[in-house]
C-alpha cells in the first residue's frame, strides 16, 4: 500500500455511490490508480458517471452530495471522507464545466485572488500567485479586465487560473471544452500540457474530444454505466473502432477509414492507422507503381434551385453599443437546401440567423421570407414559416408533460384540438418519443430533452428550420442521432440552416457551406468549393476536417479525385486498391 501514498497520486476503491434522489447507483465497483504527473483523459457517454467520478476526487461526493457512499478514495495521501472539501481544495483543484458559475470577481485579478484569499495567504503571496497563474493560462495583461466582458474561451482560461492560483497538486477539469469552438478546444489541451511540464501536477480531464485526447493525454479511462469499462493508452483505444463505437466515443477519422478497408480485406489488420501521415507513407510504399489514369468521379448533380425561400439584401446590423456585428450581407436560400453556417465564435453566425425569424431586426437592409418583406411581421407570426431550434433545450422547457410542451407552440397558432393532437402524435413518432406524452420533461435525459425541444418546433411545421449548434456539448451518440435527424428532415423537404462547429456534419450533409468571419461572408459554395480555399479558411480560423486534409494528401500521391467525406475516401481507396491488388 505504501507505494500509493505519494503526493499527487490518486487511489480509488469505491464499491458504490448513489445520489440521495436517485433509484440506481451512479457509480459502482470503481477502481483506479493515477500516478503523480500523469495526464489522464476521462471519456464515455453523457450519463456514464464522468462528472460524479471527478467530484469523488475532491470530496464533493460524499460531503456536498451526501447519498449512499461505500468505499475509499485517497487523493494526495488524504482520505477524502476525513477532510472537508474546502481543505481538500488546497491540494485538489476542480474546474467545472460552466465557467460562468465559477467566476466570482468583477475583474480578472480579483477573481483569481479569490481562492488564495480564502486560504488567508499574505497579500504579497497572493499577488505573486495571481501573476503566475495568469501567465500559465496566457491571460497576463488581462488583470483589470471586467470578467463579464471576456469571451467564452477567456472565461474558461480564467476558471483554470482561479484554480491554479491555489497551487493544487492535482488538477481536475470536467468537460472544459464543451462550449468552445475547435480552435479554443486545442488551446485548452495545449495549455494543460504546458502546465504539466512547468508545474509537475497530475491532471485529469474529461471530454468528448477524441483527436485532442489522442494527442495530449497519457492514459484514458473509459466509463460506462458508472464503472470503468476500459483503461489504457489512447492509441490502443482509438485504433480499435469497435471499442470506440461500443463506448459511444467519436472515432478518429483515419482509423475509421483504414478499419473499413481492413474489413474489406484490402488492408491488413496491422495497417489500421490513427494518423494520416502513416497511412500516406504506407500507400506510397505499396501502391506506387499504379499509373492508370483516374476517370473523373461522377460529380453530384448540383441541386436545382427551384424557388428562393429566403432573400437577404444588404443586411447590416449594429449593436446599440455601436459595435457592428454584420456588414452588408447578401444571400439567397433555396427551397430544400441544407446549408451549414460555419466560422469561429463571435463571427456573426447566430446574429445573422436571428434575423431570419425577426428576433433581431436589421439596422439596414431587407429580408424576404417566401417573397414577403418581414419588416413588419412579428416573430410569433414568422415562427410558422421559420422554426428556430436553440442550443439549450432547458431554455424553453417549462411544461409539466411532454404533450403540453409541444402543445404550447400549436396553441399559439390557434389550431383546432383534433389537428393539434394529430400533429403531436406525428411529431413524437418522428423524433422517437412515442409513448412519452405524459412524462414530465425534467425526468427525461439530456438527449431526450433535446429531442423534445426539436419536436416542439417541428410540430409547428415550419418549412425553414434554423438549428443553432445542434451538436455542441453532445456526446458521439447524441451527435450521430442529431445528424441523422437533420438528414431525415432535409429529405422530407425542409430547408435547413445549421449553425455548427462540427465540420464533419457540414461536409457529410450540407450541400452548401457559408463561412462567416467578423460579420461578413467570406465564402459561400458547395463543400468542395469551400474547402479548396485554404488560405481564406485559415484567415477565418477554420481548420478543414481530417477527411479533407487526407484527401489532399491522397491527391498528391496519385489517388486523384475530389475527396470530401470519409465515404468518398473509403470508396475511392477500395476501387483503386482492389485494382492494384488484382494487377
Amino acid at each position, binding site marked *: 500500500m505504501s507505494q500509493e501514498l505519494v503526493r499527487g497520486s490518486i487511489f480509488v476503491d469505491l464499491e458504490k455511490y448513489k445520489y440521495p434522489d436517485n433509484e440506481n447507483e451512479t457509480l459502482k465497483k470503481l477502481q483506479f490508480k493515477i500516478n503523480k504527473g500523469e495526464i489522464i483523459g476521462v471519456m464515455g457517454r453523457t450519463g456514464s458517471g464522468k462528472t460524479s467520478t471527478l467530484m469523488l476526487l475532491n470530496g464533493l461526493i460524499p460531503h456536498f452530495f451526501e447519498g449512499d457512499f461505500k468505499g475509499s478514495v485517497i487523493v494526495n495521501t488524504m482520505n477524502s471522507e476525513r477532510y472537508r*472539501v474546502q481543505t481538500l481544495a488546497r491540494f485538489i483543484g476542480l474546474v467545472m464545466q460552466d465557467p460562468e458559475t465559477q467566476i466570482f470577481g468583477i475583474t480578472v485579478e480579483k477573481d483569481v*485572488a479569490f481562492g488564495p484569499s*480564502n486560504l*488567508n495567504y499574505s497579500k504579497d503571496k497572493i499577488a505573486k500567485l495571481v501573476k503566475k497563474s495568469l501567465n500559465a493560462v496566457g491571460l497576463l495583461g488581462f488583470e483589470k479586465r471586467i470578467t463579464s466582458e471576456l469571451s467564452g474561451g477567456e472565461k474558461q482560461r480564467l476558471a483554470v487560473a482561479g484554480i491554479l492560483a491555489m497551487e493544487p497538486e492535482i488538477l481536475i477539469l470536467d468537460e472544459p471544452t464543451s462550449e468552445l469552438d475547435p480552435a479554443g478546444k486545442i488551446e485548452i489541451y495545449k495549455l494543460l500540457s504546458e502546465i504539466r511540464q512547468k508545474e509537475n501536477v497530475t491532471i485529469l480531464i474529461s471530454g468528448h474530444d477524441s483527436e485532442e485526447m489522442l494527442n495530449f493525454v497519457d492514459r484514458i479511462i473509459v466509463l460506462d454505466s458508472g464503472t470503468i469499462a476500459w483503461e489504457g493508452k489512447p492509441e490502443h483505444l482509438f485504433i480499435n473502432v469497435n471499442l470506440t463505437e461500443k463506448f459511444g466515443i467519436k472515432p478518429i477519422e483515419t482509423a475509421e477509414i483504414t478499419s473499413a478497408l481492413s474489413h474489406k480485406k484490402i488492408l491488413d489488420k496491422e495497417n489500421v492507422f490513427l494518423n494520416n501521415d502513416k497511412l500516406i507513407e504506407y500507400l506510397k510504399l505499396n501502391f506506387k507503381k499504379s499509373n492508370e489514369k483516374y476517370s473523373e468521379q461522377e460529380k453530384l448533380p448540383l441541386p436545382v434551385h427551384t424557388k428562393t425561400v429566403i432573400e437577404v439584401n444588404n443586411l447590416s446590423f449594429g449593436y446599440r453599443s455601436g459595435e457592428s456585428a454584420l456588414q452588408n450581407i447578401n444571400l439567397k436560400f433555396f427551397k430544400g437546401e441544407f446549408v451549414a453556417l460555419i466560422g469561429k465564435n463571435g463571427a456573426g453566425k447566430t446574429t445573422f440567423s436571428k434575423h431570419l425569424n425577426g*428576433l433581431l431586426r436589421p439596422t439596414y437592409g431587407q429580408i424576404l421570407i417566401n417573397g414577403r418583406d418581414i419588416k413588419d411581421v412579428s416573430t410569433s407570426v414568422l415562427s410558422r414559416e421559420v422554426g428556430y431550434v436553440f442550443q439549450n433545450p432547458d431554455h*424553453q422547457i417549462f411544461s409539466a408533460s411532454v404533450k403540453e410542451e409541444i402543445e404550447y407552440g400549436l396553441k399559439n397558432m390557434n389550431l383546432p384540438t383534433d389537428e393539434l393532437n394529430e400533429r403531436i402524435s406525428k411529431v413524437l413518432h418522428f423524433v422517437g418519443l412515442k409513448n412519452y406524452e405524459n412524462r414530465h420533461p425534467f425526468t427525461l435525459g439530456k438527449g431526450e430533452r433535446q429531442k423534445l425541444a426539436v419536436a416542439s418546433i417541428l410540430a409547428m411545421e415550419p418549412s425553414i428550420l434554423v438549428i443553432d449548434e445542434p451538436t455542441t456539448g453532445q456526446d458521439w451518440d447524441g451527435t450521430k442521432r442529431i445528424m441523422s435527424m437533420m438528414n431525415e428532415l432535409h429529405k422530407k423537404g425542409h430547408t435547413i440552416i445549421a449553425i455548427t462547429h462540427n465540420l464533419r456534419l457540414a461536409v457529410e450533409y450540407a450541400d452548401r457551406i457559408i463561412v462567416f468571419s467578423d460579420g461578413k461572408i467570406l465564402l459561400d459554395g458547395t463543400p468542395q468549393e469551400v474547402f479548396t480555399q485554404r488560405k481564406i479558411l485559415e484567415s477565418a480560423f477554420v481548420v478543414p476536417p481530417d477527411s479533407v486534409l487526407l484527401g489532399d494528401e491522397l491527391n498528391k500521391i496519385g489517388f486523384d479525385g475530389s475527396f470530401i467525406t470519409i465515404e468518398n475516401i473509403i470508396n475511392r481507396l477500395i476501387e483503386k486498391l482492389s485494382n492494384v491488388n488484382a494487377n
Partner: protein
Amino acid sequence: MLIDYYPSNSFVHSLDIRTKALGFLVVTVAAFLFLSPIINFTIALVVFLILLSISTPLSRIKKILKPLVPIFIIMLLITGFTYPAEKFQLNMNRQVIFYLLPGESIPFSSGGLFYGITLTLRIFIMVLASTVITSSTPIEDIIQLMQKFKLPYQIAFVIATGIRFIPTMQKKSEMIQEAQKARGAEFGNKGIFGNIKSYIPVLIPLIVDSLRMSENLAIAMLNRGFGAMKNTTNLHEIKMANRDYAICIIELFILASSFWANSLNIGVL
C-alpha cells in the same frame, strides 16, 4: 442596470465608500428639506454632473431613468390636481392653471405642479446619487462597508455574489424569451393578467436554471476553498485618505447650511 460597477480613474472613484455614502446622505436630506423645485433642480443638476464626471455612459443613465418616466408623470398629475391651492405659502403657487371639468371644478394648481416637480426631482436625485455610488465603487468595497457594520463575511459575500449574478440572469432571461418567441409566444400585449400568464414559459425555465446555477455556485465556492480558514485575506482595505476628510468636511458644511437655510424659510412653496 442599477448595480453595475464601471471602472475609471475619476476623482469620485478614488474616494472612500464612506465619503460617498455621507455624500448620498447629505444630498438626500437636502432634497427633502427644500420644497422648491429650483433648489431641487440645482441639486439634481450637480448630481448629474458628478455622474457624468465619472464617465458613466449616457446610454446607461437613460436605461435607468426610462422606466421611471411614467411614475413621474403620474406623480405630477396627482399632486397638481390633489393639492388645494390655498395650502401654499407663496402667492404665485396659489394660482390655478386650469380646471379639468367646466364650472371650475377639479383645479390644477401651479403649487401642486411645482410640488409634483419637486417630488419627481427627489426620486431623480436619489436614483442618480445611488448610481454614482454603485458605478464608482467595486462590490468588494461595499462588502467591506457591510463588515464595518459588523455584518458577517459570509452574508456580505452572498449579497455581493447575488449582485454579481444579476446581469447573468438578465442575459438568461433574454435567451429564454427569444426561445419562446421562436415558438410563437407574444409578450406585452394581452393586458396585465394575460401578460403574467404569458411570462410563465419564461419564469419556469429561469427558476429551474437559477436553481441549477446556485448549486453550481455553491460547489464552485467550495472548490475555491471558501470557508477553509477562519480568516480570509482582505485584499483591498478601505481607507480614508486626506481628500476623503476634506470632502467629508465640505459635505457636513453643506448639510449644516441646508438646515440653516431651511430654518430661514428659504426654498418653501
